[in-house]
């Protein structure tokens, strides 16, 4: 009998591919208990909801250094450039948008229509719940951590 892959495992694979293709950021999975997983962490978060064949929300958290690094790669700037710092949040929003669009196709195929919302900044207070979420996916890039969580209504994979 085929076992369904946990949905957050698919999210991890898609996110790694998109970060590489869209932002030239090469990621590794950060395993549970790994010493590099940050015990305390100041991160910016963005959220994107979707409706359609399934409804849910994906969160992406990253520290300011990662956001600046991704923005500088996408925009062709030096990481220390003022523009890279200013565009960090916008880059995170767009990366989440691309990740979610590709993730939904990966999970549900090319037939269903999904309506994606507009990426929105998350309240920092939401980080604590996401840090301990069972469906969280931790990635590491350039020594910096990223956290993704996915919640799909009615999905118990």
């Amino acid at each position: 009998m085929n076992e369904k892959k946990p949905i957050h495992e698919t999210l991890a694979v898609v996110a790694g591919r998109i970060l590489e293709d869209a932002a030239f950021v090469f990621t590794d999975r950060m395993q549970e208990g790994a010493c590099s997983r940050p015990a305390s962490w100041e991160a910016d978060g963005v959220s994107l909801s979707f409706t359609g064949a399934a409804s849910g929300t994906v969160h992406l958290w990253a520290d300011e250094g990662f956001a600046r690094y991704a923005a500088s790669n996408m925009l062709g700037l030096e990481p220390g450039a003022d523009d890279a710092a200013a565009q960090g949040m916008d880059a995170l929003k767009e990366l989440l948008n691309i990740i979610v669009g590709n993730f939904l196709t990966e999970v549900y195929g090319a037939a269903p229509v999904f309506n994606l919302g507009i990426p929105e900044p998350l309240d920092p207070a939401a980080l604590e719940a996401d840090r301990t979420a069972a469906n969280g996916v931790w990635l590491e890039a350039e020594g910096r951590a990223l956290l993704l969580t996915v919640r799909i209504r009615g999905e118990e994979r």
Partner: protein
Amino acid sequence: MAYTVMVVDDSATIRTVLERSLKMTKVPIEGIVQAVNGRDALAKMADTWVDIVFTDIHMPEMDGMALIDAMNADPALRDIPVVVVSTEGSEVRIEELRRKGAKGYLRKPFTPEALRDVIISTLGGWDE
């Protein structure tokens, strides 16, 4: 002939990525006009002629579908080719966009080569 290209996306990052990618395609570009949503695009097209429009679908105020509808309803704009640039992977949605009149579709993330291919298929070749 060099083209004036309009890039419509609420993300400044994606507008810049598209602009950088356009420059990498070696397509002759006369100018690039940026707009933050469909309404902004229509306002700018009232003053500036553009040869092709690249638009996102999901944007606040006026999305890409509404922009295509508005351009179709305007005799001065209905012949300007529109290419949708989106994360959408649904074949049904892409077919809906084609029925509305979109001349091309480019999925994010895209490469400069894919961008070049969609420009060639939309505008035809050019003298290099």
